């Protein structure tokens, strides 16, 4: 029996693949699919009282969501903040990666490790450290006041959308660095030399050659930053104040203080769908653009 099974295993590639995948498959099923399924089903229920839930099927929670201006505007704000964070991160990470990929000759790995060094501390600690930098009596405000440049501390720095954007940008920069670096490093430098040789200036060469060839990395970075920041909860909770609140904070409230599990579940599902749509649109359009880059 054992022998036949061994022989089957040796011959069957799918069997090998599934057995290698099985630990991950079990984990994903238990920790992802089951909770997701529960959340989805809860979004079709009704909260009757503080402890009671009516388990009959209804889509009223989704209608509720779009009837509450607050929720819709929070969803829009979440997407907007994420887009800004993604854009600023790309804008700051791209030149760094460009430099490492084309101008650093030795110890490229060391540069990358050094750049990701801040990310060895926990996300939460980094959010708290931004509190120290941006706060009313924080590093920026107190040094500006001590230097005599300001009389009153800048209030827009802390507990605002700005604070959330700055913190999220810093928090996700490292994740943008890697896909960007990989796609830029893959570009054969002789292509850039060839473009220069064929009469293009540095700037034109960047537009015509470097940028299109690094698009896969740009798309990767966009998705890697956009997807998690839309649903980010810690940063807006700690630094957002009322102005910088995002949809995830509201969802947390529905599952906690407000105790309206079905509406929270519906909001989460809507957010999930929004992220999925944005992801599909971004990857589809850019895939069209980059079909020929391999």
């Amino acid at each position: 029996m054992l022998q036949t099974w061994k022989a089957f295993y040796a011959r069957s590639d799918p069997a090998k693949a599934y057995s290698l995948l099985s630990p991950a498959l079990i984990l994903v099923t238990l920790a992802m699919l089951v909770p997701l399924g529960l959340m989805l089903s809860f979004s079709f229920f009704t909260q009757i009282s503080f402890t009671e839930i009516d388990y009959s099927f209804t889509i009223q929670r989704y209608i509720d969501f779009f009837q509450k201006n607050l929720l819709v505007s929070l969803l829009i704000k979440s997407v907007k903040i994420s887009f800004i964070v993604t854009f600023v991160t790309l804008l700051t990470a791209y030149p760094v990666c460009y430099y490492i990929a084309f101008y650093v000759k030795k110890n490229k790995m060391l540069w990358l490790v050094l750049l990701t060094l801040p990310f060895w501390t926990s996300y939460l600690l980094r959010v708290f450290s931004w509190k120290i930098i941006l706060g009313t009596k924080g590093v920026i405000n107190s040094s500006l006041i001590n230097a005599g440049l300001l009389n009153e501390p800048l209030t827009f720095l802390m507990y605002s959308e700005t604070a959330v954007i700055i913190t999220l940008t810093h928090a996700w920069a490292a994740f943008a660095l890697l896909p960007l670096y990989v796609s830029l490093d893959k570009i054969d430098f002789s292509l850039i030399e060839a473009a220069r040789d064929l009469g293009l200036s540095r700037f034109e060469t960047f537009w015509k050659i470097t940028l299109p060839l690094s698009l896969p990395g740009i798309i990767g970075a966009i998705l890697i930053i956009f997807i998690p920041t839309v649903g980010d909860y810690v940063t807006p909770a700690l630094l957002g104040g009322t102005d910088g609140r995002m949809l995830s904070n509201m969802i947390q409230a529905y599952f906690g203080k407000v105790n309206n599990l079905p509406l929270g579940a519906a909001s989460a599902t809507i957010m999930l769908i929004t992220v999925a749509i944005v992801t599909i649109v971004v990857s589809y359009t850019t895939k069209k653009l980059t079909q020929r880059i391999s």
Partner: protein
Amino acid sequence: MNNSFIQINGISKHFGNVKAVDDVSFEIKEGEFFSLLGPSGCGKTTLLRLLAGFEYPTSGSLLLDGIDITALPPDKRPTNMVFQNYAIFPHINVEKNVQFGLRKLGLTNDEIIKRVKDVLSLVKLEGYEERYSSQLSGGQRQRVALARALVRQPKVLLLDEPLGALDKKLRDEMQLELRTLQKEIGITFVFVTHDQQEAISMSDRVAVMSEGKIQQMSSPNELYKNPQNIFVSDFIGETNFLKANTELKDGEYINVNIENLGSFKIKNNLNISENASEVICSVRPETMMIDTEKSDWDICLEGKIKQTSYLGEMTKFYVETKEIEKIITVSSQYFDNQSFQDGKCFISINLNDISLLNKK
């Protein structure tokens, strides 16, 4: 015809402590097929990149058609390059690749279309306009790279080992084609290669480089028949080296005492001084004769065949004699590896075929 179309005046290029190109001066004629030949790391590619503008010299100046181009960036030079790996832009098709360099020349649309069409037919790539780099074979990519550079009608075409990645058959074909093409369009070609056979068969003139310096610059015939020093003689083709001392001169000739062989009078083509110790005599394998019988040639040595390699059109013999430890010689159809009993053979050399070389 301009004899000093490209003037290279005392060009040096240092990378840190490494002198990649070390005070090199020479001129290239207009319309010439000029090759830079040397082993890897000899500075030939650096010299080509200096001409293209990808590197700037540490010292010295470059003139092209009378204009100083030393400090010009690549996009301002009337040169174009065919890269070793072809550097075809992967995200645009063949037609767009070829058009790429034309957009800055201020041509009308009709002119652009005509030029692209003409150059694609010149390199025999009609019908491939819509293909992408990944859909082309090595030889076709090479043609695209060539078309893309030629379509701009540069004054000088720079080629960086363009045939290195092709298989032997295709390489031989492309060698002939490149040569024909160059004669047809009359553009000056500067061709970098490490393959001596390639350089000799294609070029009008060849510069042999080693350690950043030019060892010899002459026509292929001259290079093979009259190498100036050991490096060139060894690098171009195969040869046998014999240690010797010079004795007294006799007009164009000089008496030479070859180690273990005795005194001979041979032609002093490099004008080597009398009583010089440590000169080297070179004898090409194909000038010698291998036979089963003794001959009446100037030198005839009895030897034993240590090893043979059969190459089809000829056979190469590695022979040991009492006087010389290792001689390489070749024989065409007449003798092959089965002709000699117990490896016993006779090697004959004519004095005319011995050339005298400087040690450096």
